[in-house]
Protein backbone atom coordinates (compact mmCIF):
# COMPACT_ATOMS: atom_id res chain seq x y z
CA UNK A 1 0.00 0.00 0.00
CA UNK A 2 2.52 2.56 1.20
CA UNK A 3 6.02 2.01 0.06
CA UNK A 4 8.95 3.91 1.54
CA UNK A 5 12.18 3.76 -0.40
CA UNK A 6 15.58 5.01 0.74
CA UNK A 7 14.21 7.82 2.79
CA UNK A 8 16.80 10.38 3.85
CA UNK A 9 15.97 13.24 6.16
CA UNK A 10 18.22 15.89 7.64
CA UNK A 11 17.23 18.50 10.18
CA UNK A 12 19.46 21.52 10.60
CA UNK A 13 22.34 19.73 8.99
CA UNK A 14 22.08 16.59 11.08
CA UNK A 15 21.04 13.48 9.24
CA UNK A 16 18.11 11.92 11.07
CA UNK A 17 16.97 9.19 8.69
CA UNK A 18 19.38 7.24 6.52
CA UNK A 19 17.89 5.31 3.71
CA UNK A 20 14.84 4.06 5.54
CA UNK A 21 12.92 1.58 3.36
CA UNK A 22 9.92 -0.57 4.08
CA UNK A 23 6.49 -1.38 2.70
CA UNK A 24 3.13 -1.33 4.39
CA UNK A 25 0.61 -3.85 3.23
CA UNK A 26 -3.11 -3.43 3.25
CA UNK A 27 -4.64 -5.34 6.08
CA UNK A 28 -1.36 -5.68 7.90
CA UNK A 29 -0.09 -3.90 10.98
CA UNK A 30 3.53 -2.85 10.94
CA UNK A 31 5.19 -1.77 14.13
CA UNK A 32 8.19 0.50 14.14
CA UNK A 33 10.18 0.02 17.28
CA UNK A 34 13.09 2.10 18.40
CA UNK A 35 14.64 3.94 21.25
CA UNK A 36 14.08 7.60 21.91
CA UNK A 37 15.40 9.71 19.14
CA UNK A 38 15.77 6.85 16.73
CA UNK A 39 13.67 8.59 14.12
CA UNK A 40 10.22 7.07 14.45
CA UNK A 41 8.36 10.33 14.67
CA UNK A 42 10.44 11.77 11.89
CA UNK A 43 9.51 8.89 9.62
CA UNK A 44 5.82 9.45 10.19
CA UNK A 45 6.09 13.18 9.83
CA UNK A 46 7.90 12.76 6.56
CA UNK A 47 5.13 10.54 5.25
CA UNK A 48 2.66 13.25 6.19
CA UNK A 49 4.75 15.87 4.44
CA UNK A 50 5.36 17.79 7.66
CA UNK A 51 9.05 17.18 7.33
CA UNK A 52 10.91 17.70 4.08
CA UNK A 53 12.99 14.82 2.94
CA UNK A 54 16.39 15.10 1.39
CA UNK A 55 16.10 11.92 -0.61
CA UNK A 56 14.07 8.82 -1.30
CA UNK A 57 10.59 8.06 -2.58
CA UNK A 58 7.19 7.69 -1.04
CA UNK A 59 4.56 5.81 -3.05
CA UNK A 60 0.96 5.25 -2.05
CA UNK A 61 -0.09 2.48 -4.38
CA UNK A 62 0.73 4.00 -7.74
CA UNK A 63 0.65 7.55 -6.49
CA UNK A 64 3.89 9.38 -5.92
CA UNK A 65 3.39 11.34 -2.73
CA UNK A 66 5.81 13.99 -3.89
CA UNK A 67 3.13 15.22 -6.23
CA UNK A 68 0.87 15.89 -3.29
CA UNK A 69 1.63 18.58 -0.78
CA UNK A 70 1.33 17.76 2.90
CA UNK A 71 -2.25 18.87 3.16
CA UNK A 72 -3.27 16.68 0.25
CA UNK A 73 -2.27 13.47 1.94
CA UNK A 74 -5.25 13.31 4.24
CA UNK A 75 -7.44 13.36 1.19
CA UNK A 76 -5.49 10.45 -0.25
CA UNK A 77 -6.63 8.39 2.70
CA UNK A 78 -3.73 8.64 5.12
CA UNK A 79 -4.79 9.17 8.70
CA UNK A 80 -2.29 10.35 11.28
CA UNK A 81 -2.41 10.53 15.06
CA UNK A 82 0.60 12.46 16.31
CA UNK A 83 2.57 11.47 19.35
CA UNK A 84 1.59 14.57 21.28
CA UNK A 85 -2.13 14.43 20.30
CA UNK A 86 -2.38 18.01 19.09
CA UNK A 87 -6.07 18.60 19.60
CA UNK A 88 -7.55 21.99 18.88
CA UNK A 89 -8.27 23.22 22.40
CA UNK A 90 -11.11 25.53 21.44
CA UNK A 91 -12.99 22.86 19.46
CA UNK A 92 -15.13 20.28 21.16
CA UNK A 93 -13.99 16.69 20.98
CA UNK A 94 -16.49 16.02 18.23
CA UNK A 95 -15.37 19.04 16.24
CA UNK A 96 -11.83 17.83 16.59
CA UNK A 97 -12.80 14.44 15.20
CA UNK A 98 -14.67 16.05 12.34
CA UNK A 99 -11.86 18.43 11.39
CA UNK A 100 -10.30 16.28 8.65
CA UNK A 101 -13.74 15.73 7.18
CA UNK A 102 -14.26 19.46 6.83
CA UNK A 103 -10.78 19.98 5.56
CA UNK A 104 -11.20 17.42 2.78
CA UNK A 105 -14.71 18.64 1.93
CA UNK A 106 -16.35 15.35 2.77
CA UNK A 107 -20.03 15.01 1.91
CA UNK A 108 -22.38 15.54 4.81
CA UNK A 109 -23.82 12.00 5.00
CA UNK A 110 -20.44 10.41 4.48
CA UNK A 111 -19.15 12.53 7.29
CA UNK A 112 -21.95 11.43 9.59
CA UNK A 113 -21.51 7.79 8.64
CA UNK A 114 -17.84 7.86 9.49
CA UNK A 115 -18.42 9.70 12.73
CA UNK A 116 -20.85 7.01 13.81
CA UNK A 117 -18.35 4.40 12.84
CA UNK A 118 -15.71 6.09 14.98
CA UNK A 119 -18.12 6.27 17.89
CA UNK A 120 -18.92 2.58 17.48
CA UNK A 121 -15.28 1.63 17.57
CA UNK A 122 -14.33 4.00 20.35
CA UNK A 123 -17.40 4.38 22.53
CA UNK A 124 -15.55 6.47 25.14
CA UNK A 125 -15.40 9.30 22.64
CA UNK A 126 -19.13 9.59 22.39
CA UNK A 127 -19.48 10.52 26.05
CA UNK A 128 -16.81 13.20 25.74
CA UNK A 129 -18.21 14.58 22.49
CA UNK A 130 -18.97 18.05 23.69
CA UNK A 131 -16.08 18.60 26.10
CA UNK A 132 -13.54 21.09 24.82
CA UNK A 133 -10.47 19.56 23.24
CA UNK A 134 -8.35 21.49 25.72
CA UNK A 135 -10.11 19.86 28.63
CA UNK A 136 -9.32 16.21 28.09
CA UNK A 137 -6.42 14.49 29.77
CA UNK A 138 -3.42 13.09 28.04
CA UNK A 139 -4.80 9.61 27.68
CA UNK A 140 -8.22 10.71 26.54
CA UNK A 141 -6.53 12.93 24.02
CA UNK A 142 -4.83 9.91 22.46
CA UNK A 143 -8.22 8.36 21.88
CA UNK A 144 -9.55 11.53 20.30
CA UNK A 145 -6.52 11.72 18.04
CA UNK A 146 -7.12 8.15 16.94
CA UNK A 147 -10.75 8.91 16.20
CA UNK A 148 -9.74 11.96 14.22
CA UNK A 149 -7.24 9.99 12.17
CA UNK A 150 -9.85 7.39 11.41
CA UNK A 151 -12.11 9.93 9.74
CA UNK A 152 -9.92 9.92 6.65
CA UNK A 153 -7.79 6.80 6.99
CA UNK A 154 -9.02 4.85 3.98
CA UNK A 155 -5.67 3.33 3.13
CA UNK A 156 -3.07 4.05 5.74
CA UNK A 157 -3.24 4.79 9.44
CA UNK A 158 -0.16 6.20 11.15
CA UNK A 159 -0.14 6.11 14.93
CA UNK A 160 2.80 7.62 16.74
CA UNK A 161 3.35 5.99 20.12
CA UNK A 162 -0.32 5.60 20.87
CA UNK A 163 0.26 3.96 24.24
CA UNK A 164 2.63 6.48 25.64
CA UNK A 165 1.22 7.92 28.85
CA UNK A 166 -1.86 5.71 28.84
CA UNK A 167 -2.95 4.09 32.03
CA UNK A 168 -2.79 0.33 31.58
CA UNK A 169 -6.53 -0.13 31.62
CA UNK A 170 -6.93 2.48 28.96
CA UNK A 171 -4.01 1.10 27.01
CA UNK A 172 -5.75 -2.25 26.96
CA UNK A 173 -8.94 -0.63 25.82
CA UNK A 174 -7.00 1.19 23.17
CA UNK A 175 -5.39 -2.01 22.02
CA UNK A 176 -8.78 -3.67 21.87
CA UNK A 177 -10.15 -0.78 19.91
CA UNK A 178 -7.29 -1.25 17.49
CA UNK A 179 -8.17 -4.89 17.18
CA UNK A 180 -11.81 -4.11 16.50
CA UNK A 181 -10.66 -1.60 13.99
CA UNK A 182 -8.38 -4.11 12.37
CA UNK A 183 -11.37 -6.37 11.87
CA UNK A 184 -13.78 -3.66 10.82
CA UNK A 185 -11.43 -2.07 8.31
CA UNK A 186 -9.31 -4.88 6.88
CA UNK A 187 -8.24 -2.79 3.91
CA UNK A 188 -6.17 -0.32 5.92
CA UNK A 189 -2.44 -0.60 6.37
CA UNK A 190 -1.40 0.28 9.92
CA UNK A 191 1.90 1.77 10.93
CA UNK A 192 2.39 2.07 14.67
CA UNK A 193 5.51 3.34 16.36
CA UNK A 194 6.26 2.21 19.82
CA UNK A 195 9.07 2.14 22.27
CA UNK A 196 7.57 -0.71 24.30
CA UNK A 197 6.68 -3.56 21.98
CA UNK A 198 4.87 -5.85 24.40
CA UNK A 199 1.50 -4.09 24.11
CA UNK A 200 1.53 -4.59 20.39
CA UNK A 201 2.50 -8.19 20.27
CA UNK A 202 -1.11 -9.20 19.86
CA UNK A 203 -1.76 -7.04 16.84
CA UNK A 204 1.55 -6.64 15.08
CA UNK A 205 2.06 -8.46 11.83
CA UNK A 206 5.51 -7.13 11.15
CA UNK A 207 7.84 -5.27 13.35
CA UNK A 208 10.78 -3.17 12.34
CA UNK A 209 13.56 -1.96 14.55
CA UNK A 210 14.87 1.51 13.90
CA UNK A 211 18.12 2.67 15.35
CA UNK A 212 19.79 6.05 14.70
CA UNK A 213 17.77 6.56 11.59
CA UNK A 214 18.50 3.12 10.17
CA UNK A 215 16.20 0.15 9.96
CA UNK A 216 18.25 -2.41 11.86
CA UNK A 217 16.42 -5.64 11.61
CA UNK A 218 13.21 -6.89 10.28
CA UNK A 219 11.09 -9.53 11.87
CA UNK A 220 8.85 -11.24 9.39
CA UNK A 221 6.00 -12.40 11.52
CA UNK A 222 5.96 -11.13 15.03
CA UNK A 223 6.10 -13.61 17.81
Amino acid at each position, binding site marked *: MLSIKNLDVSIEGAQILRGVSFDLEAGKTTVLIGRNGAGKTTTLRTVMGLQTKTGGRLMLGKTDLDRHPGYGRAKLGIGYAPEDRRLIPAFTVEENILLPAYATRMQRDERQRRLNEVYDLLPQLKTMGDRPGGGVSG*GQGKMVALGRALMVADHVLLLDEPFQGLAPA*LALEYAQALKRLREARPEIAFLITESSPELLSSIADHSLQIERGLIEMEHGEAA
Partner: protein
Amino acid sequence: MSQPVLRAEGLELAFFGVKAADGIDLEIREGEFLAIIGSNGSGKTTFLNMCTGYLSPTAGTVYLGEKPITGMAPRRIARLGIARAFQIPQLFTDQTLLENVMLAIASRRGIWEGLKPLNRSVYVEEALELLALFGLERHAETITGTLPEGLRKLADITLALALNPKLLLLDEPTSGVSAIERFSLMEKLMAALRSRQMTALFVEHDMEVVRRYADRVVVWDAGKIIAEGNPAQVLKDPKVVERVVGVV
Protein backbone atom coordinates in the same frame (compact mmCIF):
# COMPACT_ATOMS: atom_id res chain seq x y z
CA MET B 1 6.42 5.68 61.71
CA SER B 2 8.13 8.63 60.10
CA GLN B 3 6.92 12.22 59.83
CA PRO B 4 4.78 13.33 56.90
CA VAL B 5 6.81 15.62 54.67
CA LEU B 6 3.80 16.80 52.75
CA ARG B 7 0.19 16.56 53.73
CA ALA B 8 -2.86 17.41 51.63
CA GLU B 9 -6.23 17.88 53.23
CA GLY B 10 -9.54 17.94 51.40
CA LEU B 11 -8.27 19.38 48.12
CA GLU B 12 -10.95 20.27 45.61
CA LEU B 13 -10.74 21.69 42.14
CA ALA B 14 -12.91 21.46 39.03
CA PHE B 15 -12.42 22.49 35.42
CA PHE B 16 -15.51 23.24 33.40
CA GLY B 17 -17.50 21.06 35.76
CA VAL B 18 -15.05 18.16 35.58
CA LYS B 19 -13.83 17.38 39.08
CA ALA B 20 -10.10 16.98 38.87
CA ALA B 21 -9.76 16.88 42.65
CA ASP B 22 -12.66 15.82 44.76
CA GLY B 23 -11.58 15.79 48.37
CA ILE B 24 -8.02 14.57 48.20
CA ASP B 25 -6.37 13.63 51.52
CA LEU B 26 -2.85 12.35 51.31
CA GLU B 27 0.36 12.19 53.29
CA ILE B 28 3.84 11.65 52.00
CA ARG B 29 6.14 10.31 54.64
CA GLU B 30 9.75 11.10 55.03
CA GLY B 31 12.06 8.89 53.03
CA GLU B 32 9.39 6.96 51.20
CA PHE B 33 8.99 6.48 47.48
CA LEU B 34 5.31 6.92 46.81
CA ALA B 35 3.66 6.04 43.52
CA ILE B 36 0.47 7.55 42.21
CA ILE B 37 -1.39 5.59 39.60
CA GLY B 38 -4.74 6.24 38.08
CA SER B 39 -6.68 6.43 34.90
CA ASN B 40 -6.01 9.19 32.44
CA GLY B 41 -7.61 12.44 33.42
CA SER B 42 -8.17 11.34 36.98
CA GLY B 43 -6.36 14.37 38.34
CA LYS B 44 -2.85 13.18 39.12
CA THR B 45 -1.08 16.04 37.41
CA THR B 46 -3.61 18.42 38.85
CA PHE B 47 -2.66 17.20 42.29
CA LEU B 48 0.99 17.94 41.62
CA ASN B 49 0.00 21.33 40.31
CA MET B 50 -1.83 22.09 43.52
CA CYS B 51 1.03 20.89 45.69
CA THR B 52 3.46 23.16 43.89
CA GLY B 53 1.35 26.28 43.73
CA TYR B 54 0.72 26.21 39.99
CA LEU B 55 -2.99 25.79 40.67
CA SER B 56 -4.89 26.80 43.76
CA PRO B 57 -7.47 24.36 45.09
CA THR B 58 -10.93 25.78 45.65
CA ALA B 59 -10.97 24.06 49.02
CA GLY B 60 -8.46 22.27 51.19
CA THR B 61 -4.90 22.89 52.28
CA VAL B 62 -1.47 21.54 51.50
CA TYR B 63 1.04 21.46 54.35
CA LEU B 64 4.77 21.16 54.02
CA GLY B 65 5.70 19.84 57.42
CA GLU B 66 3.46 22.01 59.57
CA LYS B 67 3.48 24.96 57.22
CA PRO B 68 0.46 25.56 54.97
CA ILE B 69 1.68 26.27 51.45
CA THR B 70 -1.53 26.51 49.45
CA GLY B 71 -1.71 29.67 47.44
CA MET B 72 2.04 30.25 47.53
CA ALA B 73 3.79 30.88 44.24
CA PRO B 74 5.65 27.92 42.74
CA ARG B 75 8.98 29.63 43.27
CA ARG B 76 8.41 30.00 47.01
CA ILE B 77 7.39 26.40 47.32
CA ALA B 78 10.42 25.41 45.30
CA ARG B 79 12.61 27.34 47.72
CA LEU B 80 10.99 25.51 50.60
CA GLY B 81 12.37 22.31 49.16
CA ILE B 82 9.88 20.79 46.77
CA ALA B 83 11.12 20.20 43.25
CA ARG B 84 9.19 18.85 40.37
CA ALA B 85 9.76 17.08 37.09
CA PHE B 86 7.04 17.48 34.52
CA GLN B 87 4.92 15.16 32.45
CA ILE B 88 5.74 17.30 29.43
CA PRO B 89 9.40 18.26 29.86
CA GLN B 90 9.89 21.91 30.75
CA LEU B 91 13.30 23.04 29.60
CA PHE B 92 15.01 26.20 28.46
CA THR B 93 14.86 25.06 24.91
CA ASP B 94 17.28 27.53 23.37
CA GLN B 95 20.12 26.92 25.77
CA THR B 96 22.42 23.96 26.04
CA LEU B 97 21.74 21.14 28.40
CA LEU B 98 24.72 22.16 30.49
CA GLU B 99 23.45 25.72 30.73
CA ASN B 100 20.05 24.41 31.76
CA VAL B 101 21.51 22.42 34.60
CA MET B 102 23.92 25.14 35.65
CA LEU B 103 21.06 27.58 35.86
CA ALA B 104 19.23 25.16 38.12
CA ILE B 105 22.30 24.83 40.32
CA ALA B 106 22.71 28.59 40.38
CA SER B 107 19.08 28.95 41.43
CA ARG B 108 19.68 26.63 44.31
CA ARG B 109 22.82 28.40 45.42
CA GLY B 110 21.21 31.79 45.03
CA ILE B 111 21.03 33.34 41.62
CA TRP B 112 21.89 36.83 42.87
CA GLU B 113 25.59 36.39 42.79
CA GLY B 114 26.34 39.64 41.09
CA LEU B 115 28.26 39.52 37.87
CA LYS B 116 30.17 36.33 38.52
CA PRO B 117 29.95 34.12 35.45
CA LEU B 118 27.70 31.10 35.41
CA ASN B 119 30.18 28.75 33.84
CA ARG B 120 32.62 28.71 36.72
CA SER B 121 34.14 25.39 37.54
CA VAL B 122 31.98 24.84 40.61
CA TYR B 123 28.93 24.96 38.47
CA VAL B 124 30.32 23.10 35.53
CA GLU B 125 31.62 20.26 37.63
CA GLU B 126 28.44 19.79 39.57
CA ALA B 127 26.35 20.05 36.42
CA LEU B 128 28.39 17.43 34.60
CA GLU B 129 28.16 15.18 37.60
CA LEU B 130 24.39 15.49 37.60
CA LEU B 131 24.20 14.92 33.88
CA ALA B 132 26.29 11.82 34.30
CA LEU B 133 23.57 10.34 36.50
CA PHE B 134 21.50 9.54 33.44
CA GLY B 135 24.32 9.37 30.99
CA LEU B 136 23.47 12.77 29.55
CA GLU B 137 26.97 14.22 29.74
CA ARG B 138 27.50 13.44 26.08
CA HIS B 139 24.73 15.89 25.28
CA ALA B 140 25.96 18.66 27.57
CA GLU B 141 26.55 21.01 24.66
CA THR B 142 23.31 20.24 22.86
CA ILE B 143 20.55 22.81 22.65
CA THR B 144 17.82 21.12 24.63
CA GLY B 145 15.08 22.04 22.17
CA THR B 146 16.56 19.59 19.71
CA LEU B 147 16.91 16.64 22.04
CA PRO B 148 14.58 13.73 21.43
CA GLU B 149 11.61 13.51 23.72
CA GLY B 150 13.01 10.76 25.91
CA LEU B 151 16.21 12.64 26.64
CA ARG B 152 14.26 15.79 27.30
CA LYS B 153 12.41 13.88 29.92
CA LEU B 154 15.65 12.86 31.59
CA ALA B 155 16.96 16.40 31.37
CA ASP B 156 13.81 17.59 33.05
CA ILE B 157 14.35 15.20 35.94
CA THR B 158 17.97 16.30 36.17
CA LEU B 159 16.89 19.92 36.57
CA ALA B 160 14.65 18.95 39.46
CA LEU B 161 17.41 16.93 41.08
CA ALA B 162 19.80 19.83 40.76
CA LEU B 163 17.72 21.72 43.27
CA ASN B 164 18.58 19.05 45.82
CA PRO B 165 15.06 19.12 47.23
CA LYS B 166 13.61 17.55 50.34
CA LEU B 167 10.76 16.27 48.27
CA LEU B 168 10.81 15.41 44.60
CA LEU B 169 7.60 15.14 42.58
CA LEU B 170 7.94 13.22 39.34
CA ASP B 171 5.16 13.23 36.78
CA GLU B 172 5.42 10.04 34.71
CA PRO B 173 9.20 9.84 34.72
CA THR B 174 9.23 6.84 32.41
CA SER B 175 6.64 7.83 29.85
CA GLY B 176 8.27 8.49 26.55
CA VAL B 177 11.28 6.51 27.65
CA SER B 178 11.56 3.34 25.65
CA ALA B 179 10.78 0.09 27.42
CA ILE B 180 14.33 -1.07 26.96
CA GLU B 181 15.65 1.82 29.03
CA ARG B 182 12.84 2.15 31.51
CA PHE B 183 14.21 -0.01 34.26
CA SER B 184 17.76 1.17 33.99
CA LEU B 185 16.42 4.70 34.26
CA MET B 186 14.53 3.80 37.40
CA GLU B 187 17.57 2.13 38.88
CA LYS B 188 19.63 5.24 38.34
CA LEU B 189 16.88 7.40 39.71
CA MET B 190 16.51 5.31 42.84
CA ALA B 191 20.22 5.40 43.41
CA ALA B 192 20.26 9.15 43.12
CA LEU B 193 17.35 9.50 45.50
CA ARG B 194 18.86 7.21 48.05
CA SER B 195 22.26 8.81 48.04
CA ARG B 196 20.60 12.19 48.53
CA GLN B 197 18.07 10.93 51.03
CA MET B 198 15.21 12.47 49.20
CA THR B 199 11.58 11.73 49.62
CA ALA B 200 9.85 11.27 46.32
CA LEU B 201 6.46 10.88 44.76
CA PHE B 202 6.00 9.67 41.25
CA VAL B 203 3.06 9.36 38.93
CA GLU B 204 3.35 6.26 36.81
CA HIS B 205 1.43 4.23 34.30
CA ASP B 206 3.77 1.28 34.11
CA MET B 207 2.58 -1.17 36.75
CA GLU B 208 5.77 -3.12 36.58
CA VAL B 209 7.73 -0.06 37.56
CA VAL B 210 5.32 0.62 40.40
CA ARG B 211 5.52 -2.94 41.61
CA ARG B 212 9.27 -2.93 41.63
CA TYR B 213 10.10 0.46 43.02
CA ALA B 214 7.27 1.98 45.01
CA ASP B 215 7.13 1.68 48.78
CA ARG B 216 3.49 2.60 48.75
CA VAL B 217 0.97 3.30 46.04
CA VAL B 218 -2.05 5.58 45.89
CA VAL B 219 -4.72 5.07 43.29
CA TRP B 220 -6.61 7.93 41.72
CA ASP B 221 -9.89 7.83 39.94
CA ALA B 222 -12.01 10.76 38.84
CA GLY B 223 -10.47 13.13 41.32
CA LYS B 224 -10.70 10.75 44.25
CA ILE B 225 -8.33 8.39 45.95
CA ILE B 226 -9.83 4.92 45.66
CA ALA B 227 -7.09 2.79 47.15
CA GLU B 228 -3.85 3.15 49.00
CA GLY B 229 -1.21 0.86 50.44
CA ASN B 230 1.38 -1.71 49.64
CA PRO B 231 1.79 -2.14 45.86
CA ALA B 232 1.45 -5.88 45.82
CA GLN B 233 -1.91 -5.66 47.54
CA VAL B 234 -3.29 -2.56 45.97
CA LEU B 235 -2.59 -3.72 42.46
CA LYS B 236 -4.76 -6.72 43.11
CA ASP B 237 -7.68 -4.75 44.48
CA PRO B 238 -10.55 -5.50 42.08
CA LYS B 239 -11.59 -1.84 41.89
CA VAL B 240 -8.07 -0.88 40.94
CA VAL B 241 -7.79 -3.69 38.49
CA GLU B 242 -11.00 -2.65 36.82
CA ARG B 243 -10.34 1.07 36.60
CA VAL B 244 -6.59 1.32 36.29
CA VAL B 245 -4.60 -1.83 35.80
CA GLY B 246 -6.95 -3.48 33.38
CA VAL B 247 -7.64 -7.15 32.80
CA VAL B 248 -5.41 -8.73 30.26
